[in-house]
């Protein structure tokens, strides 16, 4: 199937990853100015996952995201301007300055809100798939979560229900091997229970999360299954977080992970790797690449200008939005 991905699609996948990367680098470069007063969690190193999965989704499909959610939001088609405005705590932000970096939303593209409670979005994304099934819509719901979240009880509760009802939900387990400074080996002993699932109950696959094509292909099978009413899927994407848990930049000085480990994964950068491959195979020209960089840079500049010049929420409206109606 790898060869059956059209050059157009390959370039699209690359574009999506590149865009997520460039947005984050821009955020990082300005974060020290302290105008973005919000706790950020960089997705740098994990772009292939959001890009590869969301390439199969339409606006009407749902995603449920977490604290490390910039990539999910952008890949799903969330407004870049409103993302940046949210980081700048503006009224024009996607959550009107009430949510911040960890609480993004764009219902116009099926992003129904991200939770910063680890594992919290898992049952909600599962419930979204229940609403799809009840309405008989052929849509899918995708749940993104990390290896820390995989240890929470709600994952078990949610997957059990998804299997029971054969829900159109896809669990994307982004195993970046760390939860804050805690290495996965301190928390889990190898495989988790869902790797043992009967394939008739749930499609389970482990993929290289730094290969956008591997993610894309596995997600494609999962989405097809879900749309056909053939039940849930669980895809573990093995990956690595290249930056610190929160904030901007490297955290190598903290010493909880060896610098050689970071370098090793830097050499496996999903964006640079794929770029090299596309250029080598002639699926993308240097000109294409330049054009993309330029287009993305312009879009980013525009988004930051929009955010920086947008109005701030008014103190007298602090009580607004407690209840609907």
């Amino acid at each position, binding site marked *: 199937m790898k060869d059956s991905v059209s050059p157009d699609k390959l370039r699209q996948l690359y574009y999506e990853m590149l865009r997520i990367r460039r947005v984050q680098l821009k955020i990082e470069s300005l974060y020290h100015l302290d105008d973005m007063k919000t706790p950020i969690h960089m997705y740098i190193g994990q772009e292939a996952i959001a890009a590869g999965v969301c390439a199969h989704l339409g606006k009407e499909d749902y995603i449920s995201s977490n604290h490390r959610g910039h990539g999910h939001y952008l890949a799903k088609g969330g407004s870049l301007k409103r993302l940046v405005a949210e980081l700048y705590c503006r009224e024009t932000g996607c959550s009107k300055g009430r949510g911040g970096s960890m609480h993004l939303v764009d219902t116009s593209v099926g992003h129904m809100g991200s939770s910063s409670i680890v594992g919290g979005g898992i*049952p*909600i994304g599962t419930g979204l798939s*229940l609403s799809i099934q009840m309405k008989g819509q052929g849509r899918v719901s995708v749940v993104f979560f990390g290896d820390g979240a995989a240890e929470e009880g709600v994952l078990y*509760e949610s997957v059990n229900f998804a299997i029971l009802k054969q829900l159109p939900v896809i669990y994307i387990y982004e195993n970046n091997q760390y939860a804050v400074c805690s290495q996965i080996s301190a928390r889990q002993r190898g495989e988790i229970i869902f790797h043992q699932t009967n394939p008739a109950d749930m499609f389970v696959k482990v993929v290289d999360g730094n290969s956008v094509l591997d993610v894309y292909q596995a997600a494609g099978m999962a989405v097809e299954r879900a749309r056909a009413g053939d039940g849930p899927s669980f895809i573990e994407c093995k990956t690595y977080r290249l930056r610190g848990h929160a904030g901007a930049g490297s955290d190598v000085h903290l010493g909880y992970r060896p610098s050689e480990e970071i370098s090793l994964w830097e050499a496996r950068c999903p964006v640079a790797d794929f770029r090299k491959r596309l250029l080598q195979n002639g699926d993308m020209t240097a000109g294409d690449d330049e054009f993309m960089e330029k287009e993305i840079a312009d879009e980013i500049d525009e988004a930051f200008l929009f955010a920086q010049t947008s109005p701030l929420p008014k103190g007298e409206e602090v009580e607004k939005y407690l209840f609907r109606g």
Partner: protein
Amino acid sequence: MPWSKIKPEIEEPDFQSVLGNTCRKVAYAEAIREALDQALELDERVFVMGQGVDDPSGMFGATLNLHKKHGRTRVFDTPLAENGLTGIAIGAAIGGMRPVYFHNRPDFLLLTMDQLVNHASKWHYMFGGAVHVPLVVWACIGRGWGSAAQHSQALQGLFMHIPGLKLIMPSTCYDAKGLMLASIADENPVIILEHRYNFKHTGLVPEEPYRVPIGKGVIRKTGTDITIIAVSYMVTEAYHAAETLKSDGIDAEIVDLRTLRPFDEEIILSSLAKTGRVLIADTGWKAGGVTAEIAAFLCENGFSSLKAPISRVACPDIPTPSGFTLEEAFYPGAKDIVIASRKLMGWGR
């Protein structure tokens, strides 16, 4: 053992409310069941879930046989995974459905606090109004026959603390139906805490669907000497207390709050202005609970009307014991309301 079955053998107090003309006498559980039946009938987005909603006792009768009429897709039993299933209900609500999630006991809601408090209550505010969660969570407070410490907790104080959750505690058959229909129609997460003793009642309930407004209390009995603000089953106890007080020459007014969050500020302030003396009666604990909050509100906003300190009748701050002699000592009732009321009347004289 009469624990999971409750016989509706007592007529609820006659509050002389004007109820409309299609009223019949029905049991408390049947009033709820009728509300659910009508909501399922009228709105295809509504579904009912919970551990045992389709079992032979049908959640004390409140969901009895609904699955037979509306099908198991819309009325379904759930795995014992209260937190996960609450999140699933939230997701379904965000996706445009209107789930009603039943639990036998509020004690089990403690396992759902992450989804209720961290998620359902926050979703509308935290996303600047972009999403909302029209979810109803229902649970029935246990009491009696050794329900003990883990099957009898009246946890309204905990939920009342949380911005973004609506909290309802009905006391009559009429309200049980009307508040259920109002909760299902509401665009926000609503918790309904029932009380096991209310299920002993029968009362007048109109046949057609109707809504009792959320956030509005009601005067169950007018009076001039003292205001008894009561919640849920304590309204019945307050009624009996008022009968006794009458023979003392004390004319008590009873305010049934019905909704604890948001509670009806106006009705209690104007009753206080009339009587100058307030007693608050709740089925839950005293410390940091409903009586504390209402008392604080009245002190802040109606102090000049107070002729005596506010009095509170609530459960002692200990776990519920199981033995019946200890239960007897644990639960406050009409007698305690009478004693406290007399004391209030004597204050300053």
